[in-house]
């Protein structure tokens, strides 16, 4: 590192020279008294000049992967006789401590930051200044920080509860079909090919004929969680984490994926936008780790796709949960296609509840763009009513996200809908559509 004199050293040297020169020119020895502290400062600065070849400060980031709300620390360490100043520019996606992102201390300085949104976080270059303890010599460095991945937090009520599966086939639920499983269905005579471990010795010893336990099949089915990441609508009056449609979509999807994986189902994920890649249906909690990892590495700001990416191959009877703010006509079309292909579909509306709600009374007297915003979104909500009603008439439940326990109610409603006559054909979507 190469050090340079600071303004303090330059100032002390110039004042010493000026005072001494004036003392000679004016023949005023008393001015030497004024020059004395600055002469001492200049000599002190020269004596404390840092040596060449001093190692650069050590810059450490405490974590490369965190969850939303968790903090990480940027720490810069130099020698014990150095003052370290580290500055991280404020950003929209994280909070800083100290508040303005600058810390100055002896030997080491640290800045803590807390991301408040999931996804890939690219931190700006950090500016580091190393000064000697007297503030007379200084060097400047810029350090490029690595990317940080931030996983979403699915902290919703009802997480982990057992929810009835709408099609009756799940890892925790037995089917009515005989097969290899864990639930006892019958005790029958032993046939060649039956497992010896299932022989019922009590009945066999009583009857004298080999009997075996017959079980119903433990089968799983595919659960497909469909995310709509095309839009990211925020409520302007309630800024902060979790108040956007995209955050609600991701939280709902993550909760559902984790919940059904714990039930033993095979869960796949499809993104109608371009934020994450498809995850094929698999069981096991590692599937959630793959989904979590995709979200943590997603670049929210880089979303560009404006058209829906259709769902690919899907087994008939798949239980599909669509998490969407339901603002795009093509999303309604895709939901209709899923129903037409034989999937059991539930739609979760992730549009922020406070958006488009017109205030009453005194609060209604807001002026300017705020009121126009509320009225525009109120109209947009009204425009959505027709296609949502058509979905319900087709037997597709649509509800706002209220946690996993809300899915249980919908699942029961969906099971009941299977026995009811439904409107056939693809619904007409878009504003102005009738019936």
């Amino acid at each position: 590192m190469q050090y340079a004199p600071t303004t303090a050293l330059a100032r002390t040297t110039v004042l010493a020279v000026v005072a001494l020169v004036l003392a000679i020119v004016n023949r005023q020895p008393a001015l030497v008294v004024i020059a004395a502290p600055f002469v001492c400062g200049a000599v002190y600065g020269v004596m404390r000049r840092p040596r060449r070849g001093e190692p650069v400060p050590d810059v450490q980031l405490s974590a490369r992967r965190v969850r939303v709300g968790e903090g990480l620390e940027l720490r810069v360490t130099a020698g014990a006789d150095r003052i370290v100043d580290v500055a991280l520019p404020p950003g929209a996606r994280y909070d800083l401590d100290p508040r303005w992102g600058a810390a100055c201390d002896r030997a080491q300085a640290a800045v803590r930051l807390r991301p408040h949104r999931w996804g890939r976080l690219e931190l700006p270059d950090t500016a580091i200044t190393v000064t000697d303890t007297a503030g007379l010599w200084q060097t400047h460095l810029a350090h490029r920080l690595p990317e940080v991945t931030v996983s979403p937090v699915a902290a919703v009520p009802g997480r982990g509860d057992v929810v009835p599966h709408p099609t009756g086939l799940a890892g925790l639920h037995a089917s009515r079909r005989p097969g290899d499983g864990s639930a006892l269905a019958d005790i029958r005579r032993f046939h060649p090919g039956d497992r010896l471990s299932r022989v019922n010795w009590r009945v066999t010893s009583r009857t004298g004929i080999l009997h075996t336990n017959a079980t119903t099949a433990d089968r799983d089915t595919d659960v497909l969680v469909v995310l709509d990441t095309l839009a990211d609508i925020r409520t302007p009056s309630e800024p902060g984490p979790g108040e956007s449609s995209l955050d609600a979509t991701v939280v709902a999807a993550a909760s559902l994926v984790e919940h059904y994986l714990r039930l033993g189902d095979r869960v796949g994920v499809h993104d109608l936008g371009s934020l994450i890649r498809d995850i094929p249906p698999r069981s096991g909690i590692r599937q959630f780790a793959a989904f979590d990892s995709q979200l943590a590495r997603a670049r929210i700001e880089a979303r560009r796709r404006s058209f829906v990416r259709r769902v690919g191959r899907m087994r008939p009877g798949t239980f599909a949960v669509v998490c969407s703010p339901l603002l795009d006509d093509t999303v309604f079309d895709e939901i209709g296609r899923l129903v037409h292909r034989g999937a059991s579909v539930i739609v979760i509306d992730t549009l922020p509840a406070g958006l488009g709600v017109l205030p009453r009374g005194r609060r209604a007297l807001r002026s300017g763009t705020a009121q126009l915003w509320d009225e525009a979104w109120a109209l947009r909500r009204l425009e959505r009513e027709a296609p949502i009603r058509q979905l319900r008439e087709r037997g597709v439940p649509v509800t706002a996200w209220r946690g996993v326990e809300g899915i249980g109610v919908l699942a029961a409603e969906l099971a009941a809908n299977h026995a009811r006559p439904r409107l056939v054909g693809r619904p007409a979507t878009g504003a102005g559509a009738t019936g």
Partner: protein
Amino acid sequence: MNWLDELVADVAARLRRRPPQRWLLRSVMLICGAAAQVWLNALGAGSVLQALGWAVLLLGFVLPRTVVPLVAGVFIVFEAAVVRVDAVTAVPIALGLAGWHVCAAALTTGRPWARLSRRVLRGTVWWPALLGLGGVAVAVPMALVADGLVLPEIAAVTLLLVVAVVLGAVVVLWPEPTADTDRATAGH
């Protein structure tokens, strides 16, 4: 008036970001500079000099990280020369100016909105202040003795000392060539 609103908002935001500790350092800096200026006024500095002195002091208080504190310091030294202070009456001016300089040096450490720890202040404020006090304590008797000497001898000795200091500072503070510079001058 939009640009004015934005300017005021920007200045207010910058002021709000400064920690209270920095404002305290600025206040001490202003008090030290003001003490030196008040003492010079009491010693009979002219009204024009007084006005200019206060102006540069206030400007240095507003812009401590610039060259203005140096200009203010040089102005006070010139004022002291005009007023023709003696060894004893120069002491308050020396102490005030040293305090002004030390606080300005502390304010240039770190980002303007960074809070300085006690260990940083110990190195940038207390040690230079003690060094300055020691220097003044040594210089006062030297100046009293020099006052009684024959002028040409003192002038020669002082001139030699000044030349030595200036040359030494130029030689020592000149930036050393780095490895990249060497490679460039070698024609690689």
